[in-house]
Structure formats: C-alpha cells, structure tokens
C-alpha cells in the first residue's frame, strides 16, 4: 500500500482524466502528463515495485531458459506424438529411398568394374596380338633361338629362286622371323628380283655373301638347310659353285624392319564373331 502514496496526488486529479482521451479538445497540457507522470513516479522504490521486480526477474529468467532450451534441443523434445510419427515416417521413407539408391549405385559400380575388367582383358589380348602380328608383319624386332646361314657366291650365279627356295624351306621348318644380310626383313609380301651380280629384295640390293638369319627351332632349321638336294647342296653344287655355312645359335637378333604400306584397296571387314 506504500506505493499508493505517490499515486495519491495523481489520483486526486484523476477522476476527470480517464475520460480525457475521448474528448480530445479538453485541457490538453494536463492529460499527456498523466501516464508519463505515473511512469516516472513508478521508478521510486516501493513494495509493489519490489514484487513486480521479483516477478519480472522470474519471468525473464524462465524466458531466457526457455529460449536457450528451444535453441539447444533439436526440435524433437517438444514435438507432439503425431509430429514425431510424421518425422519418423519421413525418415523411414528417406531411408528406403536412399537404400534403393545405394543398391542402384552398387549395381552400376559392379557393372562398371566388370566392364573395366573386360576392357582391360580385351586390351591385353589386343596388345599380345599386336606383338605377335608385329613379328609376323616384320614391323617389330624379334629375338630367339635360330640359325645363321652364310652363303658365299663368288661367281654371282645365285638367283632369286635359290633364295626363295631357301626362304620357303626355312618357313616349312617353322621359321618365325627371317632377315637377310641384317637389312631385309622377309615378310609375306617380300619379293625377290634377279639383279646380277646380286639380288634385289623388296627393291633393296643385296650382294654376296648372303647371310640369312631365321628364328625358330634351330635344329629343325639347320636340317631344313642341310638336307640332300636342299639349299646347301644347291649352293655348293656345280650350278652355283659357292660355299654355305649353317650355324645354330641360341639367340638370333632380328633387327631389320619392314615398313608396312597403307593398303590401297583392302579394308578390314567387320568380324562376324564379335
């Protein structure tokens, strides 16, 4: 009741004032002061002030705590049951969707990795084939066991057919790569032309002594050269009158290369098996 005291003087003038806001033209200087004056007097300490202070402190404290709790929790604590069920439902759907996505991606990954394996295998096979074909086509150097046949033809009587026979006998005996004089690689398209005193191989002049190097089973190859009526007997025979020497070697390096020419007419046809 002590707070009534400061109010009293104001209250004494009050009775006319509560109606003051409605009839505006009434005494103006007094009316605006009233509420403000009460505010100002309200700053004086009193019991009511103390009670209000305590209550306000309580409210402020709780409000702050509530704000903090609201900010701290993840929103599930205050959520009601149906909200939680909705949230759970959404999460379940999300999970199912993500799981199916995982399965999809796994499947794609598997197919991709098996595809990559396939591609890798295919590439390895292709590379192996390139190596094999490169030796066959004479575009790659080769090394391996074989023979070296040295034919000496002092009279220049050897013909291209002698050499061709020699090559064919060596091929029959399983020669896999052949070069002549270390400069002419013998491949499928190699041609031999007489050009006395020598032979032109693929347009390249080759002279005596002819050194034929061939990779293959060395014993078979030397047998093929030495058999009666074969290369050696022909070269050493009366027709040519030269000398022949056959050496079996454990390593014959074949370094001469055949420059492949672009085919003018033949084109690879699509393979029906692939």
């Amino acid at each position, binding site marked *: 009741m002590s707070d009534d005291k400061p109010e009293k003087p104001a209250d004494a003038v009050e009775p006319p004032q509560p109606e003051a*806001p409605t009839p505006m033209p009434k005494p103006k200087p007094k009316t605006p002061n009233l509420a403000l004056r009460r*505010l100002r007097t309200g700053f004086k300490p009193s019991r009511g002030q103390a*009670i209000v*202070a305590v*209550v306000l402190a309580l*409210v*402020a*404290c709780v409000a702050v705590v509530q704000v903090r709790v609201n900010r701290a929790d993840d929103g599930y604590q*205050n959520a009601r049951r149906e909200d939680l069920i909705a949230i759970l439902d959404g999460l379940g759907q999300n999970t199912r969707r993500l799981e199916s996505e995982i399965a999809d991606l796994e499947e794609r990954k598997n197919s991709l990795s098996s595809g990559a394996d396939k591609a890798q295998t295919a590439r390895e096979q292709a590379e192996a084939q390139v190596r094999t074909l490169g030796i066959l086509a004479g575009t790659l150097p080769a090394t391996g066991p074989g023979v070296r046949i040295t034919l000496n033809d002092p009279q220049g009587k050897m013909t291209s057919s002698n050499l061709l026979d020699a090559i064919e006998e060596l091929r029959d005996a399983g020669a896999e790569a052949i070069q002549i004089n270390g400069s002419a690689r013998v491949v499928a398209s190699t041609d031999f032309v007489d050009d006395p005193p020598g032979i032109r191989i693929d347009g390249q002049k080759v002279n005596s002594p002819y050194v034929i190097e061939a990779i293959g089973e060395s014993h078979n190859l030397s047998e093929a050269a030495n058999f009666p009526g074969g290369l050696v007997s022909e070269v050493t025979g009366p027709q040519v009158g030269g000398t022949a020497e056959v050496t079996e070697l454990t390593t014959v390096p074949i370094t001469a290369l055949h420059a492949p020419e672009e085919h003018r007419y033949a084109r690879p046809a699509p393979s029906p098996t692939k």
Partner: protein
Amino acid sequence: MIAVLGLVIGVVVGLLVAPDVPDWAQPYLPIAVVAALDAVFGALRAFLDGIFDDKVFVVSFVSNVLIAALIVYLGDQLGVGSQLSTGVVVVLGIRIFTNMAAIRRHIFRA
C-alpha cells in the same frame, strides 16, 4: 526502477545459471512464459490506468501461468495438446496486443 533491475537480474541469472528444464515441464514452459508476459503487460496497463494493485498482479500472474499450463496439460491428456496450446497462445497473443494498444494510447495518446 527496481522492476527494470529485476528484469535485468532475471536475464543475467537465466544466462548464468542456465538450469536444466525437467522433462515434465518442457511442454508447459513456453506457454507459461507467454501467459506471464500477458500478466506483465496487463499489470503495466493497469499501472498506467492508475488501478495497479500488487496483490491483484501477483494473483493474476500465478493464475495465468497455472491456467495456461493446466490447459496444455489437459489438452495433452485429451490428445489435442498441440491444438489447445496453439489456441492458448493465440488468445494470450490477442490479449497482449490489446494491452499494448492501451499502453500505447496512454503513453503516446494515439
């Protein structure tokens, strides 16, 4: 002056102590805060009206908070908790606006 001091002290205490709200009180605390705000604004209006009474204030404050919490509790028990708390907040909000309008009229005469 003391009232403003109390407000500041309350904020500081709330920030410093930061007590844990027990689980059972958590659904009711926000409603109780809104109800308390309504009571505080009502008190301010009454004060400016010149009819402020501390006893009335304390009683109205406590009853406001209790009734708000009770309504929410009842709503929870009946399974309409969220709707009821929305309703309580709406009603208290309207009351706060009305009180604020009266306070505004008192202070700014507009």
